[in-house]
Each structure stands twice: as structure tokens, then as C-alpha cells.
């Protein structure tokens, strides 16, 4: 046995024991937008961070850089013994389905997609309800009766945002025009602020004076251009009002942080199955803070609060694009 073999053997043994020793506690894997996208992934990170600060414990995390890493990342954490493993983003659905069955003792949590397996908790949000609320605000704030929507990648989930938004707009102003654009059809559409700017400029020239961006990192460019051109914008996922104080009308907040926090707090025995977060359990909401309080009048506030209450009681039902892939208010 040569020295090299011994050395390699020793290293491998060390790596194995080290892996076993370090691996405990929960793990979170972010989607392609990256941990600090000021939006969806950042919200997930904030939830994990809040849990870490409150409990003083640590969590493992990973930012993928390409689609090819997905299944590998899941397996790595599962084999290292992390439990539960939280995945932020609908794109995790397929790789998780493939990997989860091999690790029956590990619980997985997927946000934004529903995967049916005995060890998976699927958290989905009623984005159409939150988008409906911000759509109402957009219609009330618009002076040109034209508002617009910039989506990221053209997928049913993003159309669900757009559809809810359009329904909210039409509820307040049936004659309003809603312009809708998608950034692209590949995952790079989440990270193209330059194209987001161009789409916004084109929408402004078609008369839009409120633009809602549901496009991850691309939304940064949308909000920037809206601020530069003096129109209002609506942020998404995280509260983005502070990005351009006084020029962001509101944000459609998706409490991804709560979803992550709850999963981490429940620990290894996290409840599996489908978990829907909507307006009634404060999973989605519109944001109101010091940056936009001057933009939201009392009437607007009363109108949205009423709609929220009606949604919670079931009196008002917003059409979900993903239920039948059609939208009554807008043609994609």
C-alpha cells in the first residue's frame, strides 16, 4: 500500500466522519435568481435567517447556478443527513420527485409547487388573490386607465399572477386596458434587468402608468425604469417598496419567509402534504409601509380591505389561471 493510497484512504475516512458530524439541522436550497434577488429567494432566506437568530442554531444552504445542479444538490443534502430540506421555487418539482423516494426518512419541503409523496410538504400560495388586490390598487392609482404587467419566464405560475392582477384591475375599472409582457421562455428571463427596462419603456409608450413586475431579478430593471420615467410600479414576493421610496405603489408580498420559518421550526417532524397560503391565513398580501403611505389613499385602503375580507369569507372568488389554463380578464 503506497503512501498515496493511504493518504487518500485517510482523507476519505475523514471526509465521511466530517460529513456525518456536521450534517444535522435543516437545509435550504435557493433557485436560480440567487439568495439576494430582493424578491422570492431573499424572502426565503429571510425566513431561514429569522429562525437561525431566534433559535441560535445553524442551517445549511446552497445557491444553484444551473439547472443541472438541482437533483445533485437535493441528494447531497439528503445524504449528508440534513432534515428537513427546503427548496424554494417551482422548478424543483421534477428533480424532487425523482430524488425524494430514495430518502424516505428525510422530509422535504417544496415552495411554489405541489409534489405528491409521503415525505414531501408542498407549500403553494394563492398568488392570484394577492395579485388581485394589487391590481385593484393599480386601477385606482392609474390616471390613463392603462396598466401593465411584466412577467419573468412564461409559465403558468407567472400567468397566474398576471391573471389575478388583470381581474383586480377590471373589478375596479372595467374599461381599463391591461398590457402584459413576458421576459422570455428560458430561465435566464429571471435575470435580465435590461430587457425588463425595455419592456417597461414599451408599455409606458402604450399608455401604461402603473406596472406590476413578477419577474425575479428582471423586476429590478422594471422598477428602476418606472422610477426614471415617473410612473408607479408594483413589486413582488418581498416588500420592495423601499427600492424607490414614493414611486413603488405597493408590493404583492408572498410570505415565503413564513413558509420557510414554519418548516424550519417544525424541524424533522414537519407536517407533510399540501399547504395552501392565501389571503385568509396571510400567506399573500399587499404591503403598506412608510415608503408608500402617501400613495395609498384611505379609500383605496378601505376597498382592498373589503376585498380581502370577502376573499377570506369565500364571498369573492378570484379565478386561478392554473386551474384551467384560461383567464377571463386577459388574453396572454
Amino acid at each position, binding site marked *: 500500500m503506497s503512501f498515496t493510497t493511504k493518504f487518500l484512504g485517510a482523507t476519505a475516512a475523514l471526509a465521511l466522519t466530517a460529513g456525518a458530524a456536521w450534517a444535522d439541522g435543516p437545509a435550504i436550497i435557493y433557485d436560480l435568481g*440567487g*439568495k*439576494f*434577488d430582493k424578491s422570492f429567494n*431573499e424572502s426565503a432566506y429571510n425566513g431561514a435567517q429569522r429562525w437561525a437568530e431566534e433559535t441560535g442554531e445553524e442551517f445549511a444552504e446552497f445557491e444553484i447556478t444551473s439547472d443541472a445542479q438541482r437533483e445533485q444538490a437535493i441528494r447531497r443534502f439528503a445524504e449528508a443527513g440534513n432534515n428537513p430540506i427546503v427548496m424554494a421555487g417551482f422548478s424543483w418539482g421534477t428533480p424532487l420527485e425523482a430524488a425524494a423516494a430514495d430518502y424516505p426518512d428525510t422530509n422535504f419541503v417544496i415552495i411554489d409547487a405541489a409534489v405528491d409523496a409521503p415525505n414531501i410538504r408542498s407549500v403553494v400560495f394563492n398568488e392570484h388573490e394577492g395579485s388581485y388586490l394589487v391590481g385593484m390598487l393599480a386601477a385606482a392609482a392609474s390616471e*390613463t386607465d392603462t396598466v401593465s404587467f411584466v412577467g419573468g419566464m*412564461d409559465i403558468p405560475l407567472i400567468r397566474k399572477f398576471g391573471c389575478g392582477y388583470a381581474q383586480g384591475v377590471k373589478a375596479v375599472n372595467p374599461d381599463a386596458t391591461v*398590457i*402584459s*409582457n*413576458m421576459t*422570455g*421562455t428560458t430561465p*435566464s428571463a429571471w*435575470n*435580465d*434587468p*435590461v*430587457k425588463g*427596462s*425595455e*419592456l417597461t*419603456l*414599451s408599455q*409606458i*409608450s402604450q*399608455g401604461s*402608468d402603473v406596472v406590476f413586475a413578477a419577474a425575479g*431579478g428582471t423586476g*429590478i*430593471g422594471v422598477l*428602476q425604469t418606472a422610477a426614471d*420615467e*415617473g410612473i408607479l410600479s408594483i413589486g413582488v414576493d418581498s416588500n420592495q417598496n423601499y*427600492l424607490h421610496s414614493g414611486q413603488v405603489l405597493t408590493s404583492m408580498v408572498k410570505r415565503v419567509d413564513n413558509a420557510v420559518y414554519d418548516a424550519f421550526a417544525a424541524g424533522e417532524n414537519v407536517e407533510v402534504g399540501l399547504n395552501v397560503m392565501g389571503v385568509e391565513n396571510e400567506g399573500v398580501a399587499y404591503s403598506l409601509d412608510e415608503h408608500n403611505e402617501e400613495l395609498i389613499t384611505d379609500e383605496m385602503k378601505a376597498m382592498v380591505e373589503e376585498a380581502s375580507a370577502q376573499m377570506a369569507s369565500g364571498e369573492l372568488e378570484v379565478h386561478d389561471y392554473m386551474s384551467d389554463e384560461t383567464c377571463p380578464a386577459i*388574453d396572454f
Partner: protein
Amino acid sequence: MDFFTFVQLGDASVRMAIPLLLACLAGLFSERAGIFDIGLEGKMLAAAFLAAAVSLVSGNAWVGLLAGIGISIALSLIHGLASITFRGNQLISGVAINFFAAGLTVVVAQGWFAQGGRTPSLPKDARFNGIDFPGALTRVRDKMQADPWAQFYSEFISGHSILVYLGLLTVPLSWWVLYRTRFGLRLRAVGEAPEAVDTAGISVVRLRYTAVIIAGVLCGVAGAYLSTAVQAGFTKDMTANRGFIALAALIFAKWRPWYALGACLLFGLFFAIDNRFQNIQLEVIWIMTGLFAAAAAMTLYALRRERIDLIVLGGLSAVLVFVGLATWIGAMDEAIGATAALFETVKVPSQLIQSLPYLFVVVVLAGFVGKAIPPRAGGQPYVKER
């Protein structure tokens, strides 16, 4: 579609074309001197990052621009060192620069600003803002109500950042340098026949280094334009493959400055169309005419080439014809009769619009561009004869 729409399309084309144009001219100088440069993307990205970071800290966009140019030149010199001095493989060195920039920008940005590989948003006075000429309208909503001349003046002529005007000026400047100066003659010669230049007693190494440094300056401006003029800050991978599109434009332009302007504006126009007309409504007959024309052009092109081209492009043409017919048949459900279906208005699928730039390039290449011949000594390190 009114006049203002056309003006805006032109305006957006120029805006989208400038980074391509600068990168394309950078590639032109480098490749004309015999150094292939697929590291344009990486140099732009590094420049975009450093320009944004330095503008943010110093509060001055010009200082940021200088920093961007600086890092881009530094990367060019690495490329030069590898491919001129050490006579390494130019493609590998270029790929290395791309990977290096893609990774390092994010890591350094995370280290400096801790915002996940992006810089914070730049304040207004640390950016290259649009220059409004006297009497020009600034808000889009005001421009829409103005008369055509005011629209053209305010939207197309005025309102760009200084880098756009400078970028357009580099085209005649490059032409003049390449075709009307002694330096330009030598630069072109060193890419065609370096041994002849060497025989005349002129240093090949020095000329080639000068060329890659010029390429570095131009890439630096392109990167700074993206992060401090178009956008307000750096985001991960923000160049979005523009460096590679610039290389395609360079071949399309047959390594000539004025053609490069045309090629980049054409690409800019395609992107502008893609951004602007995602929800275009057209009568079925127009969609079919367009698709069939594209299919016919591609097939004709492929027939002149080899069998593999015929298989690939012929297949693509068949798909286009199929899409056209499917649109027609789809419209028949709503209209009565096949003829009426031809005049039914349907929404053009956004995927089709997004693929237009690439389809158009094939069509234009087939019809209007002859054979593109690269500089003869391109890609080969020069070894002095002893």
C-alpha cells in the same frame, strides 16, 4: 401603428445596439490583428461590475468608466500575454476570461456589498443619464401628444446618454484609423500576413498588443454602458451573452466597421421588435406569408450549401410551414370557411416573435451576404523565423 411607434422602435434599436457595436468593434480590432477574442463577454462583464462599483463609491460615473476600461484592459493584457507572448491557444484563453469574469464579479460583489453578487442601485448622479437637447420633451407621455418632428427629435435624436453618441462616433473613427492611417494598414497586414510585416521591420508583437488594448478599451466602455447608463448597477451575468452576439455580428459584418454598425443596428432592431411586439395581433394571411417566405428563403439557402445544411434548415423550414398551416387550421374553428379563416385576426405566439431575430439572420445571410472570409492569420500565434 402610428409614427411614434416607429420612432420608438428606432430609439430602442439604437439603445440595444450600442453595447453590441462597441463589443463588435473591439472584436474587429483584435481579429483584424490576428487575435481571435471570444473573451469579449467576460471583459464586458468585468467592466460592467467595476464601473458600477467604482461609480457607486466615488459618486462619479466617469471615474467608474475609467475603472471599467482599466479592468477590461487588464483582462485584454492577460489574453495578450497568453496568446501573443506565450503563443497559447487564443480560444482557450478567451473562454478562461469569460469564466473568470463570470465567477469573480459575483464573488467580489458579494464580498464588497454583501447583496448576493450585485451592487446596490446607483444614485442618479453616479450614472450616465440621458442628455436632453434644448427643447426636447422628456416624459414619454408628453412625447406621445407632440407633433411628429418633435417626437423624432425628442425620442430619437435627444435623450440618449453620452456613451451612445460616443459609441456611434467610434464607427467613423475606427474606419479612419483602419483605412486611412499607417497604423491601420499595418494592423490589417499583421492579421493577414504577419511575416510580411515582420520582414518590413515592424514589431508584430507590439502591433498585436496595441490591438488587444484597443479591444479592451472598447469592451470597457460597452460594459460601463450596460451597468451605469442602461441600468443603475451591476447584476449577475448582466451582459446576457451580448459578447457572443457581437461576435456573430462581426462575422455578419465581414470584419468591416460600417458593416458592423449595420449588423449591430439590425440585431438591435430585432431585439426592439421582440420587446415591443409581444402581443401583436395579425391576420392569418400575413403570418402565413411571413412564415412561408422565411421557409422558402432558408430552403433556397440550404440548397446552395452542403447536405447537412439542407437537413437542418430544411427541417426548420418544414416546421415553419407546419406552424403556418396550423395557424390557418386553428383559425378555421372560429370562422366559416377556409377563405374567411385567412382574414381572421389572431395573436402571434410570443415564441415566434422571439425567434424572429435568429430566423431573420439566417434569411439575410442567405440573401444578402456573400462569403465571410476571416483575416488569414487569425488565431495563429506568430513565430519569428530565425
